[in-house]
């Protein structure tokens, strides 16, 4: 049976093109393998456009009926998004010579498409695991010791996420039978304290980089290959947002989680030196906006979250691409070592600025049309404190991603590097992303019409919005400039900053060391006593005990006269020698055995 085409309504799984592309790329070499990076997403994009909302596909596996595909408008939107992201990232990675990286990248994109179209929790779980395993090669592809270690830490988080998801699914299945497998919202059961739903939320939370579970993101992405984060940033967290919007719309707890996510990374981003890590922190901050939108749960807020996921993939991908190009050309990504690159990389600089303008939500760029929906809905639903957090985060994101990234990498003090402009394929990919950033910013109706609820009645471009947005952006930038002129802006220093990963990278290691010291110490002491002392004594007793015993009895027995007529000393020497060799007749040994036994018997009485 053809597993991929066992559908009743649609011909093939939406991820087929990318899956096949990934498999084919694994056996091709050179430019042919690279070509799949472009061809597969294009085919997939065409196929998604032919899918009709409401169609589905089922799969019989081990006697269970799995709803492997369910097409709705949200799935289609994410389908378009993931294919577009794969196409852009594919063009960006066109120069790669490593068929493994190409193959796993396409399979990774296919897994993301699978998650977006998953019709029930079981098929979701399968793609979810695929997402974890295929993505780690973007980190390991760097082939350094740091990347290898970081990849294992990354994998640890994502495998845990898969296991938690499975545990949650099984708990719910155990309680409610097969009806628990549907992808219906779990908000109510979460709020009534259902453990299964909580585990599922936790599983999604790891992938969405909830505060405390976020360390894999800044750890893994910063160690990945120059092209790696372009793939990584598009899929994993957006799959989490997609599923979060399906399963937990309107869950109150998400509002608080999202607000924390939006605020705390800003501080880290300001003092972080690795520019890709700065982008990671700003990514957590942007996902915070989406999580708040999902938590508010009104139709418009969910639309805002999904729209923000869409625009975010494009502009964050663009920023990661520009930083990847810098890393690719200079081999350096630390802000303290970069600067002045605009002179030789003008195109990359320009594209980076477009990305920076988008993430800062400058009007006419894509971030503005999506982020403002979420902020507006927060205010409209009366979440005052969260609204302040989001506004604060908007000001902060301009500061760290909008200005710091382009300024430190391309302007700032001249680091003296004069690298070549990025290769053509990278520039093309950045150009396509920049185009979409500006296009969606100027024509938000294209994006809005694809949303599940059509962003009903929302107009980003009214005078109040424009004035207030420009005002907050310009005055945030003003503070940056004034602090810089005063010289009191935190300088880029070669350093790392402690984050939650300290717990498992340092405290964990220290704990290991203490435990190793203690238990190995105990082990050694016990070994010394038992093996070194007791066994030795027993051994020596077993080996020479009889000699001592016979020696002890030699003199008295000689007195009695039963040991022959030799002299006392000679007899003793003979007895000792023969006892050591073990050649005494059994009789003598048996005699002493008898004496001992009788002695015991007497003593026992």
């Amino acid at each position: 049976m053809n597993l991929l085409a066992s559908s009743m309504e649609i011909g093939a799984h939406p991820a087929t093109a990318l899956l096949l592309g990934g498999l084919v790329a694994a056996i091709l070499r050179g430019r042919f393998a690279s070509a799949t990076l472009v061809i597969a997403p294009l085919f997939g994009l065409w196929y998604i456009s032919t899918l009709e909302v409401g169609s589905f596909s089922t799969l019989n596996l081990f006697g269970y009926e799995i709803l492997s595909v369910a097409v709705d408008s949200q799935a289609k939107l994410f389908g378009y998004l993931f294919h577009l992201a794969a196409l852009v990232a594919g063009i960006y990675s066109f120069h790669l010579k490593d068929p493994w990286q190409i193959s796993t990248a396409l399979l990774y994109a296919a897994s993301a498409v699978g998650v977006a179209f998953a019709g029930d929790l079981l098929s979701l779980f399968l793609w979810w695991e695929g997402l974890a395993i295929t993505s780690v090669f973007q980190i390991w592809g760097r082939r350094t010791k740091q990347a290898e270690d970081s990849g294992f830490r990354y994998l640890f988080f994502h495998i845990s996420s898969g296991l938690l998801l499975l545990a949650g699914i099984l708990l719910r299945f155990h309680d409610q039978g097969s009806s628990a497998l549907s992808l219906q919202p779990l908000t109510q059961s979460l709020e009534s304290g259902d453990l299964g739903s909580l585990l599922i939320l936790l599983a999604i939370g790891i992938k969405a980089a909830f505060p405390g579970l976020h360390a894999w993101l800044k750890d893994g992405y910063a160690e990945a290959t120059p092209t790696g984060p372009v793939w990584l940033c598009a899929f994993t967290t957006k799959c989490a947002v997609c599923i979060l919007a399906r399963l937990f719309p309107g869950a109150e707890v998400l509002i608080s989680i999202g607000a924390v996510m939006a605020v705390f990374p800003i501080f880290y981003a300001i003092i972080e030196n690795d520019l890709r890590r700065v982008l990671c922190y700003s990514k957590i901050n942007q996902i915070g906006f989406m999580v708040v939108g999902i938590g508010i749960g009104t139709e418009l807020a969910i639309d805002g979250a999904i729209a923000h996921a869409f625009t975010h993939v494009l502009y964050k991908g663009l920023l990661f691409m520009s930083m990847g190009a810098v890393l690719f050309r200079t081999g350096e990504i630390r802000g303290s070592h970069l600067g002045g690159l605009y002179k030789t990389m003008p195109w990359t600089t320009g594209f980076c600025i477009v990305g920076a303008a988008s993430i800062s939500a400058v009007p006419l760029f894509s971030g503005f049309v999506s982020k403002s929906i979420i902020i507006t809905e927060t205010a409209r639903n009366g979440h005052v404190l969260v609204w302040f957090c989001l506004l604060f985060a908007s000001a902060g994101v301009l500061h760290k991603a909008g200005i710091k990234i382009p300024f430190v990498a391309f302007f700032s003090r001249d680091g003296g590097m004069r690298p070549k402009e990025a290769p053509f394929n990278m520039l093309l990919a950045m150009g396509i992303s920049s185009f979409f950033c500006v296009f969606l910013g100027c024509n938000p109706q294209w994006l809005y019409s694809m949303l599940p609820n059509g962003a009903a009645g929302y107009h980003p471009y009214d005078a109040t919005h424009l004035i207030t947005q420009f005002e907050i952006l310009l005055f945030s930038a003003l503070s940056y400039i004034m602090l810089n002129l005063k010289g009191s802006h935190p300088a880029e220093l070669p350093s790392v900053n402690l984050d939650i990963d300290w717990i498992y990278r340092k405290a964990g290691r220290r704990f290991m060391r203490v435990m190793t010291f203690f238990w190995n110490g105990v082990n050694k002491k016990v070994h010394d006593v038992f093996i070194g002392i007791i066994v030795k004594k027993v051994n020596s007793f077993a080996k020479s005990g009889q000699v001592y015993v016979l020696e002890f009895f030699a003199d008295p027995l000689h007195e009695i006269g039963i040991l022959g007529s030799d002299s006392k000393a000679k007899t003793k020497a003979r007895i000792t020698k023969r006892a050591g060799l073990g050649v005494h007749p059994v009789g003598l040994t048996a005699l002493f055995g008898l004496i001992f036994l009788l002695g015991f018997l007497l003593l026992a009485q």
Partner: protein
Amino acid sequence: MNKKNKKPNAAKRWLDKPQNIRLFIRGFYCLCAVIMLADFVFSIGWHKHAAFSNDSGLHGVEPLPAFYGIFGFLSCLGIVYASKLMRSWKGKNVLMRDEDYWDK
């Protein structure tokens, strides 16, 4: 941290000249002034939509002119000073470590 650094033999770019940077910054100040003016004119002459509904405490505060500008400016100052404290507090490192910290 300024954009003024230059190499003696490198080709001069527009941004290499300090007076151009001063020009840029002066232009930026003007832009800030213009948007502030626009906010005041718009708030007084027309009508700003309030983001919050009537029963919220912020209903009267949020549409005031310059609210967003002051908020943005102060939050960025706050962010910068707070993150400096995150680096070091009274001369002692709080969260900042050497680059080889994880490998030690």
